[in-house]
């Protein structure tokens, strides 16, 4: 991109033969030719920069779009949905005039390159998406996946990621209330750093990313624009890591949470005074994205003077300014007579704000530099009419073999002692062990509305102090299940998150997802993706929980080796009164432990098969969505009517994992009896879906079992909260001390 002479629109038209570095910027030959066709001439350097970032996989969803349509086509009727897919984040009605917006996004590749900043700016980005909807952010969650727990590089990546999430989120004053931490060698060179955020607003405060009204001013505010993250979107998100290439460190953005905190407060104050017509955050693709999307979603016309963008580095070229992903910036469209007040609010918060352009009555996005026009495009072609690929996909040849390698045939413990040893081994394994060492680095308390936080089944936030109205969120995913069967695996992720919201007493309402997969250019990966999307869309339709938005992260692979297909699903729920929430911990001795749902011999993809046999094969647990719905209804009713005092979802690790967690959190043991028709091993380790354990006060037993009986939900009394051991009658007994040591010392030993 030569800067002498400046590559103006006029110059581009006059010099059709100039070769531009479209390949280096990540465009394919046919994509570049399409740009030339759209413009009727070669693009200027600045235009090329815009098209290349906006048409990258990360921004355009070009490989995934054709599949993602199902989320809209199969969307269930849902009165609660106020804003659906396509905006910065979906918005859901939670009653009493409140609306909640939430979304999960990935920041995988940057977090591998630079764990602290990659993770920190992941939090920053998702928080700005939430503010851009008009909402005050109230909580964050972080589903994380790393390589093997004992791999030396995990010790580099994980502490950096955790410190980055904490360093950024804590400084913003957002409680971190949930998420996951999973270890698996498949994520060695491709950690998954997903970040979710919830925001709350009144219905009338919903804002959208659109620039309308000719003459309205476009204001860029927040941090100055620097050279960080240039090409981050197109280079980092769209290519596979390859050892041969030079270090990509400079492409990762650097975050400043203090600046973001000011941005939040100043934006919310501007919303409160109704000063904003449209708003967009600057994330991937920076100004290219914000200007083209705002213009494209409005009437179409916008004129921007790039010289007015405040810079951190005065040597930046116009192309670099357009591509920069400097953090903590937002773009607002404001009516001329309100500009002064808007700027005043920014000044109050010491936030730099500059009018950089205005909405025009044309349909072109025009960008000027030193008085010359360097961009003249139809913004829709940049923002919304990128390429769409029908990538070939095919069920991989190895899928049958994988499924035939049945985990149910693995050797099982033969004696009570072996069973006991395997229980200890399971609860101490990195995936099943307590994550307190990690979560204690996050602030759970700030804002003073946290009702539940990890390790509870879902995080819960009170949103109205008077009525007690609250929202819950859970995020779940199981790459092992999805590898065995991506369709079922995606449904199991949804089922688990749905169940986790219900076990805390909240009603599941809506879904956001973060779909983490390998390279879409590999037909096997594309098949996994297609199956997972189909599975999730079908399940959302059946459970009545629409997908409101989310994110796709592709190219998560090193060389030929892709990660497990890892759809991470977030479910948002609502609870009328947080006083009715149900925690995980056993609270009172003598309460009866009931197992809800059916337990089958299902060990494919299970934690037991991984921990004891290092095995992955067979089929994942079956999914019965009608059962999930019934279980959820029972759990919600029982919470509301005070029939249960604690509840815990059963998922990876099975029943024993859940019992041990409830016991350790409450400091109260349990005595369990193996019910008729089941053996101890299956009872403890099976991962059949659609199950939960609950602790029922004796006074409520009859009412509770009557309700389950009448509704047709199997409820089996399996024991009682008692003493300071977890005992399986006739098998073994483990003291809480012994269990606590096993469960809580693993992660610090590996990472501290």
């Amino acid at each position, binding site marked *: 991109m030569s800067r002498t002479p400046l590559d103006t629109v006029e110059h581009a038209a006059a010099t059709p033969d100039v070769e531009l570095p479209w390949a280096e910027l990540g465009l394919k030959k046919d994509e570049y030719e399409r740009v030339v066709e759209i413009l009727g001439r070669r693009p200027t350097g600045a235009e090329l920069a815009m098209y290349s970032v906006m048409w990258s996989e990360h921004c355009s969803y070009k490989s995934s779009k054709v599949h993602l349509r199902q989320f809209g086509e199969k969307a269930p009727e849902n009165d609660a949905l106020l804003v659906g897919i396509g905006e910065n984040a979906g918005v859901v009605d939670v009653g009493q005039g409140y609306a909640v917006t939430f979304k999960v996004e990935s920041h995988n590749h940057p977090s591998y390159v630079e764990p602290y900043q990659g993770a920190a700016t992941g939090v920053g980005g998702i928080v700005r998406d939430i503010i851009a909807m008009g909402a005050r952010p109230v909580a964050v969650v972080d589903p994380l996946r790393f390589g093997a727990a004992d791999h030396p590089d995990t010790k580099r990546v994980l502490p950096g990621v955790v*410190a980055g999430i904490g360093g950024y989120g804590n400084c913003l004053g957002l409680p971190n209330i949930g998420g996951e931490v999973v270890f698996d060698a498949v994520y060695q060179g491709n950690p998954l750093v997903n970040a979710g955020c919830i925001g709350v607003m009144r219905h009338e405060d919903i804002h959208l990313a659109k620039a309308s009204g000719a003459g309205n001013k476009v204001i860029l505010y927040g941090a100055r624009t620097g050279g960080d993250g240039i090409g981050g979107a197109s280079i980092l998100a769209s290519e596979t890591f390859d050892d041969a290439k030079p270090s990509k460190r400079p492409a990762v953005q650097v975050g400043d949470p203090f600046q973001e905190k000011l941005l939040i407060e100043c934006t919310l104050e501007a919303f409160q005074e109704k000063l904003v017509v449209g708003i967009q955050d600057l994330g991937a693709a920076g100004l290219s994205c914000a200007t083209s999307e705002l213009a494209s979603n409005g009437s179409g016309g916008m004129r921007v003077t790039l010289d007015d963008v405040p810079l951190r580095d005065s040597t930046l070229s116009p192309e670099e300014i357009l591509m920069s992903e400097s953090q903590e910036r937002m773009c607002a469209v404001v009516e001329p007579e309100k500009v002064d007040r808007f700027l005043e609010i920014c000044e109050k918060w010491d936030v730099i704000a500059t009018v950089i352009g205005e909405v025009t009555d044309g349909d072109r996005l025009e960008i000027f530099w030193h008085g010359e026009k360097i961009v003249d495009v139809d913004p829709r072609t940049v923002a919304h009419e990128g390429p769409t690929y029908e990538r070939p996909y095919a069920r991989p040849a190895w899928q049958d073999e994988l499924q035939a390698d049945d985990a149910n045939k693995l050797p099982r413990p033969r004696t009570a002692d072996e069973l006991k040893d395997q229980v200890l081994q399971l609860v101490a394994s990195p995936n099943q062990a307590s994550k307190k060492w990690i*979560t204690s680095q996050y602030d759970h*308390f*700030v804002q003073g509305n946290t009702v539940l936080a990890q390790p509870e089944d879902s995080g819960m936030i009170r949103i109205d102090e008077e009525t007690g109205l609250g929202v819950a969120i859970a995020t779940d995913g199981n790459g092992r299940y999805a590898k065995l069967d991506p369709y079922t695996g995606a449904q199991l992720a949804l089922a688990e998150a749905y169940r986790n919201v219900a076990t805390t007493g909240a009603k599941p309402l809506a879904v956001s997802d973060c779909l983490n997969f390998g390279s879409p250019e590999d037909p096997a990966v594309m098949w996994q993706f297609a199956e997972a999307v189909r599975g999730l869309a079908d399940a959302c339709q059946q459970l009545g929980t629409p997908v409101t938005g989310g994110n796709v992260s592709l190219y998560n692979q090193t060389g030929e080796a892709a990660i497990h297909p890892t759809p991470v699903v977030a479910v948002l729920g609502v609870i009328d009164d947080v006083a009715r929430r149900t925690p995980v911990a056993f609270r009172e001795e003598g309460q009866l432990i009931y197992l809800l749902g059916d337990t089958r011999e299902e060990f494919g993809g299970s934690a037991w098969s991984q921990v004891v046999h290092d095995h992955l094969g067979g089929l994942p647990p079956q999914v019965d969505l009608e059962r999930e719905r019934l279980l959820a209804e029972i759990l919600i009713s029982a919470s509301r009517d005070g029939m249960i005092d604690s509840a815990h979802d059963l998922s990876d690790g099975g029943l024993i994992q859940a019992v041990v967690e409830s016991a350790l959190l409450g400091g109260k043991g349990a005595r369990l009896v193996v019910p008729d028709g089941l053996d101890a091993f299956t009872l403890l380790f099976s991962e059949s879906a659609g199950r939960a354990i609950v602790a029922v006060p004796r006074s409520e037993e009859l009412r509770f079992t009557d309700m389950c009986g009448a509704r047709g939900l199997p409820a089996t009394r399996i024991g009682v909260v008692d003493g300071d051991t977890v005992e399986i009658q006739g098998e073994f007994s483990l003291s809480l001390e012994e269990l606590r040591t096993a469960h809580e010392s693993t992660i610090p030993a590996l990472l501290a």
Partner: protein
Amino acid sequence: MTARIGVVTFPGSLDDRDSRRAIRLAGAEPVALWHKDKDLKQVDAVVLCGGFSYGDYLRVGAIARFSPVMDTIIDQAKAGLPVLGICNGFQILTEAHLLPGAMLGNDHLHFICRDQKLRVENADTAWTTDYTAGQEIHIPLKNMDGRYVADDYTLDELEAEGRVAFRYVDFNPNGSLRDIAGITNEAGNVVGLMPHPEHAVEPLIGTGRTDGLPFFTSILKKLVNA
């Protein structure tokens, strides 16, 4: 008759809303104060809340100490205005020399968030009369720079004068010298501590305990009875 208690918002303050809520739940009237404003709006007491004022750049609390609102607070605190510094507020009070000592990074180098057990060592300050000396309470703690340090002479003096207001019990979460969690000035009107009493004022929220509420009822009683 109630009392007006101000809560200062600096850029980067995080627990200002929470502190105002705690004041309200205790029965007093919370008043928002702004860092650029020298005017304290005739409040009867001030809370400097937690957060990362001015991004905690340079050194925790170092920039906030020079803000216009602090000029007034420093003068009035010396004249007896009750001031409570929580976490970042405590850090600001040491930077302002209203309290002795300083705060360093936690000895384990990580941010730490936990339900912390404390012992109330001094129940005679403006902010602690609703406790009894020796009482053990649980208050959430969350910080990166919570390691209280001072020279031996100062520490001995604090101990001798009963100015160690709170001590960590069972577990020292940040390497603070002599397990000190909070201190008071000689007059007992200025108190600073690292844990967050404003996060322990409602039975359902946070850890579900209300052990922090007496901070706010103590000051209210003192002001109303004055």
